[in-house]
C-alpha cells in the first residue's frame, strides 16, 4: 500500500465508530456534587483577596517611602540654600 492510501486509511479510521458511553454511575456522582458542592471557589477567592491585600500593602509602603524621600530632599535643599545665603551674606546691606 502506498503512503497516500495509507494516510487515507488512517483518515477514515473513525468512520462508522460508535458513540462512547458515559460511566453508568456518572449521574449519581453529579447528584452527589449538587448536594455537596466543593468549597474550592471560596478558598480561591480568599487567596485572591490575600494577594490583593499584599499588593496594596506594597504599593502603599512604596508611596509613603517615596513621598518621605521627596519631602526630606526638598527640605534639605531649602536648608542648604539658607546656609549658602548666610555664609556669603549675599543680601546683607552695609
Amino acid at each position, binding site marked *: 500500500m*502506498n*503512503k497516500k492510501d*495509507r*494516510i487515507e*486509511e*488512517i*483518515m477514515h*479510521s*473513525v468512520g*462508522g*465508530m*460508535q*458513540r*462512547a*458511553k*458515559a*460511566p453508568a454511575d*456518572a*449521574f449519581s*456522582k*453529579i*447528584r452527589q*456534587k*449538587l448536594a455537596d458542592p466543593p468549597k474550592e471557589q471560596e478558598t480561591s477567592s480568599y487567596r485572591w483577596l490575600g494577594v490583593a491585600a499584599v499588593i496594596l500593602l506594597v504599593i502603599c509602603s512604596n508611596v509613603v517611602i517615596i513621598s518621605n524621600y521627596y519631602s526630606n530632599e526638598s527640605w534639605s535643599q531649602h536648608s542648604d540654600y539658607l546656609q549658602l545665603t548666610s555664609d556669603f551674606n549675599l543680601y546683607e546691606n552695609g
Partner: protein
Amino acid sequence: MNEKSLLKSIALGSEEALEQLYNHYGDRVYNTIISYTKNAEDSEELLHDVFITIYNTARTFQFNSSVSTWIYRITVNKSLDFLRKQKSQKRQGILTSLYVKDTSEIKYESADFVHPGVKLENKEDAKLLFRAIDTLSEHQKTAFILTQIEGLPQKEVAEIMNQTRKSVESLVQRAKVNLRKELEKYYPERGKSKNITSD
C-alpha cells in the same frame, strides 16, 4: 416533556428534569469530551462539570438557540478550557523538571489513547489520527471533532461555534489538510510495520 420545558424545570431546581436531560445528552457530551481530553477519568470529571453548569445556569438560558446547541457549546468550552489548563501545567512541568529530579509521576495524557467507540480493526489507525488531531488549532479541532466524530451536521456546528456554515466547511477542509500533513510525519518507511509506537 420537551427540552425547553425540561430546562425551565431545571431552572426551578428540579434534579429529575436534569436526569432526563442527562439521559438524552450524557453520552453525547461524554463522547465529545473524550475526543478532546483522550482520558476517561478527566472526561468523567468534565461530564459532571458540564451538567452541574447546566443545572446552575439554566435560569440564564435565553432560548435564542436550541437546547442541544447550548449544551454542546458548554461542552466545547469546558473541553477547550481543560486543554488550555493542561498545556500550561505541561509548561510548568517542564520548568519543574529542570529543578526536580523525580518527575516521572507527572503524566499529562495518554499517547496510546484509543477512542472507546472505534472499531477493533481500526484501533491502531485511530490512535494515530487522535495524536494528529492534537496538533490542530482549537477551531479546526472543534470543527473536526463535532462533524467527523460526533457526526453533527455542519449547520448545527456553525451555531455551536458561532460561525457561518461556510466557515465551518472551510475549517473542516483545512483540518483534513493539516491532519494529512501531520500523518505523513508518522508514516513509516515503505515496507515497515503498519503499527507505530509512540516514543
